[in-house]
């Protein structure tokens, strides 16, 4: 039986009449990496802030380690590490002061791990936070988030605006968190290759709703990309059952589709076409099919 660390049920939230989250349910299980995908403004950060007790649920419920993070913030935050997208850090402190400040909040602080990471990142402990580059701020924030070896690590767009070297440091921290003692990671990212590499479970949030959620391999296995060839050319995309996105021209079209391949093949041949090639869709193709082009189709419908 896999332990549930985060359980969000039917969460809705709006800001000044604008809906940010609309009936979101989300579960995170222990020992897994959970990737959150979605366009900017889709609601990822709003969801993560609810997990930390920084926002109160308007409707629905949020449980982290079985408790409501708004009612028991200390109980949740003591066991959680968090790196925010804005990396709000106390500007006036030195790196070393930030370490001691974080340590004071976390009895489980592992000073030798913090020291090791400072060395790896070549961060100067005497330097003031406000003097740090963007990449160094992310590294300092990351140490503060992971050095108490939290049971739950939450990273909001950790790679945003960072170069390849610092992105690698962040991914290493995720791997270590999970590999060392089966702890849990939730991270949001707009970099789909990162989500695909790092996630055991993925959730796609689109316009405040969960558009897609599941074990990555199941999600990947549920969608295919097929290249089609038709006897007669089409001026506009041919209508095919189970097709989520289609592009191409004339006799050649590429389709992202879900459901049974037989049914799809049948629908294609009914339009006078055949499948030239078919393979599992990539995460990016699935993302675009569910949260990209489909939007205009949904609005038109």
């Amino acid at each position, binding site marked *: 039986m896999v332990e549930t660390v985060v359980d969000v049920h039917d969460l809705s939230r709006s800001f000044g009449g604008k809906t940010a989250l609309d009936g979101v349910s989300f579960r995170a299980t222990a*020992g*897994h*990496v959970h990737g959150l995908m979605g366009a900017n403004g889709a609601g990822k950060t709003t969801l993560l802030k609810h997990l930390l007790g920084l926002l109160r649920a308007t409707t629905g419920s949020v449980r982290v380690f079985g408790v409501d993070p708004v009612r028991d913030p200390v109980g949740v935050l003591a066991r959680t590490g968090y790196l925010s997208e804005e990396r709000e850090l106390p500007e006036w402190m030195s790196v070393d002061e930030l370490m001691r400040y974080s340590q004071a909040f976390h009895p489980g602080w592992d000073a030798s791990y913090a020291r090791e990471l400072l060395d790896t990142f070549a961060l100067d402990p005497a330097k003031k936070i406000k003097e740090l580059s963007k990449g160094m701020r992310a590294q300092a924030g990351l140490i503060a988030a992971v050095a108490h070896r939290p049971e739950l690590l939450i990273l909001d767009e950790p790679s945003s605006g960072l170069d390849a070297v610092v992105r*690698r440091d962040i*991914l*290493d921290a*995720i*791997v*270590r968190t*999970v*590999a*060392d003692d089966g702890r849990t990671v939730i991270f949001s990212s707009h970099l789909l*290759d990162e989500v*695909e*590499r*790092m*996630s*055991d479970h993925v959730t796609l949030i689109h316009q405040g709703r969960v558009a897609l959620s599941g074990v990555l*391999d199941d999600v*990947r*296995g549920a969608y295919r*990309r097929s290249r089609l060839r038709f006897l007669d050319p089409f001026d506009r995309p041919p209508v095919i059952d189970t097709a989520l996105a289609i592009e191409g021209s004339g006799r050649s079209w590429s389709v992202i589709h879900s459901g049974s391949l037989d049914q799809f093949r049948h629908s294609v041949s009914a339009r006078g076409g055949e499948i030239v090639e078919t*393979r*599992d*869709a*990539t*995460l*990016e*193709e699935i993302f675009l099919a569910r949260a990209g082009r489909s939007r205009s189709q949904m609005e038109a419908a």
Partner: protein
Amino acid sequence: MDITINLTDGVPIYRQIINQVKYLVASGLLQPGEELPPIRTLALQLKVTPNTIVKAYGDLENAGVVHKRRGSGTFVSEERPQLAIRERRRVIGQRIDALLAEAHQLSFDADDILRMVRERQAAMGEATAEPTRKEKK
């Protein structure tokens, strides 16, 4: 261990790892009894979730390619010939398919290709002689 992850062709990452370990074993780049990298090490190297490595190693164990030793690590199995032949055929088969497709595009038939393969082999001479003897043992 030399493994490359490619996210553009739609093959799941754990499947890519399985295929490449099988290839490394089939080609002799991983020897029987040799230890595979620990899960954490390979996850850090490939920048993938450790659970993907766990899954790939588990499937490789079920397929008899590797075995786990309690309290130590994951090792390439000793009994490899049967798998190796099948795997070697699969790898070469893919290359042949690609070659035949290209040959067809350029208007060569299979007999032309066979003749050209022999010509190339003769031209390479000694270079191919040694591995051929090795395979026969």
